[in-house]
Structure formats: structure tokens, C-alpha cells
């Protein structure tokens, strides 16, 4: 049976656009969240260490400082079952770009060591000496820098020799120099932040980590999985609440707009609903028209939001390259379900008005 609530094409299109915009907002925020989560730990994930060693009480590299000595790295390297240990010094460094200053997450590492450097190079090569630097590709694109150019970091001119990928943590990007160069920037030659180590093949990693813990109780040892989790949690504690609140606000605004739109369309169709009541419409029939309208609008709006997500992501990426986004089917399903649920709940709230429409009105000549 035709639904009179769907008879106004202009209103229908407007409502679908409103629902679509809210679905797009939620999907986009979630994809940013996903992108941040992935980008923040990509460096760790791709380094391929079996164990990460930090100063005691340090659990992550995102918002925690760990201070260790190169001697600690030497001791770990010499431990039984350890195949290699790579020291890394992570510091925030200021880069001068004309009149502007930008901050980089500068990783000083030993290029001859197997870990600690850029996990993947999109262009160029790794630094060979203290005058060279590898920049994150997103940072380079954003500031129109290319391999062969120079960049001034904390007063030193460094030549860009490579561009790395998987090193964009959205709020900041990694850059890679030699360990010596990074230590020179802070003025402490023996200083490192953490050590990434690998065990020999066939070694029980859990037992090996326990052995290292008992050998150096003053340090923190994390398996690769634990360390990734720690960093993700650290990122989430800052971002999740923020994005979640914005998403909730989006859902709240959507609910209010939908309740208003549904209420308006119900009031507009008051005469027709009164006729239906007078003709003997079963009790749940008219509310079911409102709910059906909401289901159609919610589904169409969610579909529109999903369709718009891809071009919007592309536009945002072009405008702000550091904003990485990630998207999975689960997110699309959850957001679509949430939008549909909000639409249905809004329609139920709006449908309460129907109880104040009386069949008797049909006999009072309310129209024409």
C-alpha cells in the first residue's frame, strides 16, 4: 500500500540528505580514528622486533619518555638468545620551513642495524651519514619537499635522501637520522630511548623475555603484541573520547532533526490519518507507516553516507595529507545500523503525536 508520508519528493530528498550527512560524519570520524590507530603504531608494527625494551615505568613511545643508555643496548645485545638489538633515540625536533616551524618525531638509529629505521622507503635510500635525513612521505608532500632538497632541523641543514611510508601518526610524522645526529641534537652522546631486539630463531620468546626481565629488572620488556597494544591504548585514550563525543553529538543532532521532520510530516498528513482512522484503520497501521518511512529514509540516508564517504576521504586526503583514514566493512555495518536505529527511534517518538488525532475530526469538515 502506498505510504502517504513518502509522497513529497522534495521533503524526502532533504531528509535523506540530512540522514546521509550524519551517517557520513559518523563514518568519517570512525575512519579517522581507524587511520590514527593504524598510523600511530605502523612504525612499531613494521619494525618486526620480538621485544621492545624501555626505561622502567615507560610503556609506550607515543606519550611517554624513556631514557636509557647505549650501554643498556650493548648488554641486551650480548644476552643469551638475543640475535640483534637496535638502539633508537626518539626526540621531538623543530624543522624550519621558511617562516614556519614544524615539529617532527625524529628517530635516531644506527643504519647498519636491522631495526629502528624507516619501515619502508617509498623513494630514495636510508641515511648513510649524519648530514642526511629520511622524511615521512606525507610530511614531504604536505611541505612540498623532495629527495635531494635540504631541510633545516634545529639549526642543522640535512639533505633529504629518502621518503618513508607507514610513519605518519597524524598529529606528527616520523623522520629518520643517524643515532649520532639525534644524540648531537640533544647533547648527550650516550642517550637512547628504547631498544628493539630480535631473538634467535627457535627461541621461546616468552621465556626469553622473562630471562631478560630477571637480568635487568630496572627496564621494561614488552613483546611486540603488548607494545602495539600499549601504544594503541595510549592513542585511544586521547582520541577515542573526543571522536566518540563528536559522534554522539552527531547522532543526537540527527535524532532531533529527524523527530522534527517526522513530526512535521505527520502533522502535514493529519487530515489523511484522520480519514484512515475514521475508515477503520487497525490500531498499529498508521504508526507502521511512520516507522516504514523512517526505515526507508534511514536506509537510503545510510547508503548515501557510505557513497559519499569515498569521495570525501579523497578530498580530505588531498587537502590534508597527514589525515590518514581507514575503513572496514564492520564500521560501515555498525554506522548503518546506528543510523537506522536512530531513524526508527525518532519515528517512534514522533509517532506519539498520532494518539492525538481523532477519527471524529473527519466528521467536522476540517478540510476544503
Amino acid at each position, binding site marked *: *500500500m*502506498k505510504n*502517504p508520508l513518502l*509522497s513529497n519528493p522534495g521533503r524526502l530528498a532533504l531528509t535523506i540528505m540530512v540522514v546521509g550527512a550524519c551517517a557520513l560524519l559518523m563514518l568519517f570520524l570512525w575512519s579517522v580514528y581507524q587511520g590514527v590507530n593504524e598510523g600511530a603504531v605502523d612504525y612499531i608494527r613494521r619494525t618486526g622486533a620480538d621485544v621492545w625494551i624501555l626505561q622502567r615505568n615507560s610503556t609506550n613511545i607515543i606519550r611517554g619518555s624513556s631514557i636509557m643508555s647505549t650501554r643498556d643496548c650493548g648488554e641486551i645485545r650480548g644476552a643469551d638468545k638475543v640475535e640483534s638489538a637496535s638502539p633508537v633515540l626518539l626526540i621531538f625536533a623543530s624543522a624550519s620551513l621558511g617562516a614556519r616551524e614544524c615539529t617532527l618525531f625524529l628517530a635516531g638509529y644506527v643504519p647498519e642495524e636491522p631495526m629502528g629505521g624507516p619501515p619502508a622507503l617509498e623513494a630514495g635510500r636510508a641515511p648513510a651519514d649524519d648530514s642526511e635525513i629520511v622524511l615521512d612521505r606525507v610530511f614531504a608532500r604536505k611541505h612540498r619537499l623532495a629527495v635531494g632538497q635540504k631541510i633545516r632541523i634545529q639549526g642543522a641543514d640535512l639533505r633529504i635522501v629518502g621518503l618513508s611510508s607507514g610513519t605518519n601518526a597524524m598529529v606528527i610524522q616520523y623522520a629518520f637520522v643517524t643515532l649520532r645526529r639525534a644524540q648531537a641534537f640533544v647533547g648527550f652522546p650516550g642517550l637512547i630511548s628504547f631498544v628493539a631486539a630480535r631473538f634467535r630463531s627457535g627461541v621461546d620468546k616468552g621465556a626469553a623475555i622473562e630471562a631478560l626481565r630477571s637480568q635487568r629488572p630496572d627496564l621494561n620488556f614488552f613483546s611486540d603484541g603488548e607494545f602495539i597494544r600499549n601504544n594503541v591504548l595510549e592513542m585511544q585514550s586521547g582520541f577515542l573520547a573526543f571522536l566518540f563525543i563528536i559522534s554522539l553529538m552527531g547522532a543526537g543532532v540527527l535524532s532531533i532533526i529527524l523527530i522534527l521532520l517526522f513530526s512535521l510530516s505527520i502533522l502535514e498528513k493529519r*487530515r*489523511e490519518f*484522520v*480519514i*484512515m482512522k*475514521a*475508515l*477503520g*484503520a*487497525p*490500531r498499529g*497501521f498508521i504508526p507502521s507507516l511512520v516507522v516504514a518511512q523512517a526505515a526507508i529514509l534511514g536506509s537510503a540516508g545510510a547508503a548515501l553516507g557510505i557513497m559519499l564517504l569515498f569521495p570525501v576521504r579523497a578530498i580530505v586526503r588531498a587537502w590534508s595529507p597527514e589525515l590518514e583514514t581507514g575503513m572496514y566493512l564492520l564500521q560501515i555495518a555498525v554506522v548503518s545500523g546506528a543510523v537506522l536505529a536512530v531513524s526508527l527511534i525518532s519515528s517512534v517518538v514522533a509517532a506519539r503525536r498520532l494518539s492525538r488525532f*481523532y*477519527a*471524529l475530526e*473527519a*466528521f*467536522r*469538515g476540517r*478540510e*476544503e
Partner: protein
Amino acid sequence: MGTVELAGLGKMIKEGNEERWILRGIDAVIEKGELALLLGPSGSGKTSLLTVIAGLVAPSEGRVSVFGRLLSDLRDRELQAMRARRIGFIFQNFLLIDSFSGYQNAEISLRFAGFGRAEAERAARETFSDLGIGSLGPRKASDMSHGERQRVAVARALAASPELILADEPTASLESGQGARVIETIHSYLRGSGATAIVSTHDGRLVARSDRVLELKDGRLNHCAAGRGA
């Protein structure tokens, strides 16, 4: 036993702090197959009496029986089912659903009466065809003229083959020729089906086609007699 029986019927309403009887002391029986006219000037209580008979308003006193059942004994759901399945309504201004076609206006009424989708579509088309208004079926109600809307409203009321037709001033806004055609359509339906009709009007010329006349004045039954068509 009549199709509609009214015994000591009264309806009181409150207007501010004052109470006013809009119907009082009405006793009448409308037999099966009769075309009964409710005559009276505006404000005499004709529409109120129809709404009471339809079970949309409960009387303040007295009893109303329709199809042999006291309306006060029926639950809301039973009243709704009775209106949908056994009563056909023609409203004063026809009250079509503007966004629907002529057929759809009849179909929705048929669906409420318990017809399946295909059954309702078929019955709507048959009714329009029988009444000679097949060309109005596919047209949107909002695009119809006054007279066309009135004919579709009658078709909607008759589509589910109701046992009782309640028509509220169905000729009030029509030219005399169109009004006569409405009454003729109802009359011929009653003859073919044995159904009953109660038609409120202030047009005394319709008395000639009626079987019974109930004349209301100030909410009281002023006169109740067999019509000239009886």
C-alpha cells in the same frame, strides 16, 4: 430487530464550565434495507448522531445498538473492526486522500475491511466500473473536480459492500443534479444489497427518496415518520 436502534439516547458536552445536551431523548429504529434521512438545520445534532451510531463517540445516556449489538458492550478493537468491515462512510467534504489515486482511496478502505492486496485491487476496479467511473480510478485525487471527488468518495464507501452506510451531508456542497445522483447511487446499492443507509441532510427534497425521516431540532427528535419512498 432493526439495523440501528436508539433508546433514550443523549449526549452531553462541556463548553467551559457549562454542560450542554447536544442530543437528548432520542428513540428510533432504522430497519434493515431502509434509507433513513436525518433532517434538520445546521447545529441540530445530525452529525453528532452519526458519530454516536458509528461508535466514535459514546453517548452520555441511553443505548445504541448496531447490527443487534450494544455499542457499549464492544471494545475499541471490535468497534474499529465493525467500522472497517460493515460500515461505509461518506463524509461531508468527501475526505479523499489527496496523494492517492481514485482506486487507491478505495483500496485502502478495502484493506482495512480485511481484503488482501490483490482482492482489494480487483474489488476497487469492479466498484468503479459498476458505478461508471472507471476513468477516475487511475487519477490522483488532488487532480479531481469537486463532483469527481464526490463520486470517488461514494465508490470508496460502497467498495467493501457494507451493511450500513453513514453519509454526512453528502449533497451539501453539490449542485442539485449531482446531489440527486449521489442519493440515487446509494438507493440503488441498497436495493441490490439489502443494506441500510442513514443520510444526514438539510435538503428536504431528498425526502421523496427515503424510507424513513428523522427530523432533529436542537438535539431532540422532532419528528420520526416513514418517508415518501417507503
